[in-house]
C-alpha cells in the first residue's frame, strides 16, 4: 500500500474541504482494515449462551477499530492537520525486493547465494550505491554470516544450493 510511487506533493490530489489529509486517509485505511477483518471473521462462530465463540472477540475488536477509524477520519475532516508527506519509492521497493528474494531463495539456493543476492538488491535502495565497495562488503558479510549462523550459533541453515549437495 505504501509502494505507490508519487513524487509530487500529494496535497493537490486532495479536495480543499479535507483539512487534515494525513488523518483523513489514515482513518480511511483503518476503516478498510476493520471491514476486512469483519469479512475475514464472518465465518466464525459467535456467542452461544454466556460463552464467546471463536469469532466474538475478533468481531468485537473489528467493530471497535471501525469506530476509531471513523473518528480519526472525522478529525481529519474538521480539524486542520498535516498534509500527506510524499512516499519515496526507491527504498521501499528495493528493500522489499531484497526481503522477497531472500525468502524465495533461502530454501532452494542456500544461505551463501541468497544472502549475497539480497545484499546487492537492498543496496540498490539508495542512489548513493557504489558497485565495487558494495560487492566487496557483500562478499565479506556473506562469509561472516556463513560462519556465524550455521557454525558459531549452530542454526540449521543450509549453505549451498540443494542440487549441488545432492
Amino acid at each position, binding site marked *: *500500500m*505504501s509502494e505507490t510511487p508519487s513524487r509530487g506533493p500529494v496535497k493537490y490530489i486532495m479536495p480543499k474541504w479535507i483539512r487534515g489529509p*494525513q488523518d483523513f486517509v*489514515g482513518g480511511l485505511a483503518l476503516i478498510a482494515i*476493520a471491514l476486512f*477483518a469483519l469479512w*475475514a*471473521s464472518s465465518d*466464525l*462462530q459467535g456467542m452461544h*449462551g*454466556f*460463552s*464467546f*465463540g*471463536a469469532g466474538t*472477540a*475478533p468481531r468485537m*475488536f*473489528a467493530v471497535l*477499530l471501525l469506530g*476509531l477509524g471513523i*473518528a*480519526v477520519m472525522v*478529525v481529519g475532516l474538521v480539524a486542520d492537520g*498535516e498534509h*500527506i508527506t510524499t512516499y*519515496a519509492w*526507491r*527504498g521501499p521497493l528495493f*528493500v*522489499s525486493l*531484497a*526481503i522477497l528474494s*531472500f*525468502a524465495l531463495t*533461502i*530454501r532452494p539456493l542456500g544461505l551463501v547465494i541468497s*544472502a549475497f543476492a*539480497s*545484499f*546487492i538488491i*537492498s*543496496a540498490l*535502495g*539508495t542512489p*548513493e*550505491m*557504489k558497485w565495487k*565497495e*558494495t560487492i566487496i*562488503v*557483500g562478499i565479506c558479510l556473506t562469509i561472516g*554470516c556463513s560462519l556465524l*549462523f550455521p557454525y558459531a*550459533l*549452530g*542454526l*540449521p*541453515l543450509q549453505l549451498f544450493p540443494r542440487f549441488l549437495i545432492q
Partner: protein
Amino acid sequence: MAELFSNLALGFGVAFTPINLLLCLIGALVGTLVGVLPGIGTIATVAMLLPITFGLPPVGALIMLAGIYYGAQYGGSTTSILVNIPGEATSVVTTLDGFQMAKQGRAGPALAIAAIGSFFAGCVATVLIAVLGAPLTKLALAFGPAEYFSLMVLGLIFAVVLAKGSVLKAIAMIVFGLLLSMVGSDIETGASRMAFNIPELADGLGFATVAMGVFGFAEIIRNLDAGAEMDRDLVQQKITGLMPTKKDLKDSFPAILRGTALGSILGILPGGGAVIASFAAYTLEKKIAKDPSRFGRGAIEGVAAPESANNAAAQTSFIPLLTLGIPPNAVMALMVGAMTIHGIVPGPQVMQKQPELVWGMIASMWIGNLMLIIINLPLVGIWVRLLRVPYRLMFPSIVIFCAIGIYSINNAPVDVVLAGAFGLLGYWLIKHDFEPAPLLLGMVLGPLMEENLRRALLISRGDWTVFLTRPLSAVLMATAAFLLVLALLPSLRKKRDEVFVESET
C-alpha cells in the same frame, strides 16, 4: 528477609558459573554492538538476536537475553551522546545535554556518568525486584480473570497516555494490535481465525516477525527516505579523559538518586515505563535546578538523571512479567516469546517452581550492568569507529541480518515475507503519524486479554458488570478511566506535548 538473602544467594550461585558469566558478557557485548547501530532500537535488537539464544539451556538463554537488553540500552545512550542519534526512545532526552557535552570535548565524562548512573540504578532495581517479587506473587494469586483483564486495560491505557501525539490514533493502534493477535487458532475452540488457510498463519503472527517488520525494516526504509547519508554530526574530537571529575560526581549524584527513584516507580507500571521515566527524570531535574538555563548546554545532571531513570525502569519492568506474567512492554513481550520457546510460562508459578531460573536472571541483571561498565568504557573508541561506516553499506547488512534472524526462528520463508509486509505497513504508519509501539503492545496483550475476558464472563455467567463489582478490578478500571479522561483533557494534553516537544528540538 532471610528468605530474600537466600533467594539472592541462590541467584548469584546460578549466575556466577563460568558459562553463565560468559553468556552474560557475550549478550551485553553483542547487545551494545547492535544497539549502537543507528536506526535499530532495543526492540529490533532483541528480536534480531533472539535466534542466537535458541540452542542454549533456558537459564543461559534468559541471562543472555537480559544482557542483550541492557547492552542495547547502553548502546542507545552511546549514540545519543556521541552522534546525537538516539538509538531508541528511552535515550532521546540524553541527546539534549549528552551531545552538548561531547561537543565540548567532555564525551568521556558523559559516557562514564551514563554508565555509572545506569549501574547504580541497576543495583537499586535489582534489590527492588528481589524485595517486591515475592509479595507481588502472592498478590497475583488473588487475581482472577476479571482482575487480569482490568489490569491489562489499565496497562494499555497507560501506553496511550504515554504515547505522543493523538490519543485517538494511539487507541486505534492498540485495537489494531489486538486484532492482529487474533489471527491464528482460537485458544478454546481451535477454530482457525483469519488465517485464510495459510499453514504458517495457523499459529498466529509471530511477535518477533511483526516487531522486526514494524521496527526494523520500517525504520530502514524511513531512513532511506531521508537520504542514505544521514546527517551525522559526528564528534571528531578524540575522546580524552574518560573519568568524570570530582565536581561532576558531586553534581550528578543527587540526580542519579532522583532518576533511580522515579524510574523504579514508573517501570513497574505497565505500558512503556522506561520512555516516560527518562522524560520525567529530565523534566524534574530541570524544574528543581538552581539554574535551569544550563540544561541543553551540557549539564551533567541532564545525562545522569534520565540514564539512571531509564535503566531503573527497564529493570523494574521485569516485575510485572515475573510476578503476574504480563509483559509491560514490547521488549518484555519478546522475553515471553523466548521463555515460551524454552517451555516456560511466565507468571507466579515460575517463581515457585523454578526459583533458580528467576533468581539467576535477577542476579545476572546486576552482573550484566557491572560488565557494561567494565567493557564499554574502554570500547567507546570502537563504537565510534563503527558509527563512521556509511549508511549505504550499513543498511543492506542490517536487512540481511534481520532476514536471517527471522528465517531461523521457524525456518519459514513465509515469516520473512510477512516481516517485509509489516515493514511496509510500518513505513505507512510512520508516514501517517501512527505510533507502532502501542500496536505491538496490543498484539502482545491480545491473547491474554481475550482469554481472561472470556473466562471472566463465563464465571460471571455473562454478566459484564463483573469488572466493576469486584473491588480490585473496579479500582483498576477506575484508574484506567481516570487516566484516559486526564489524557483527553486539553489543558493536560498541552503540557504533555510540551514534554515531548522538548525532546525533538
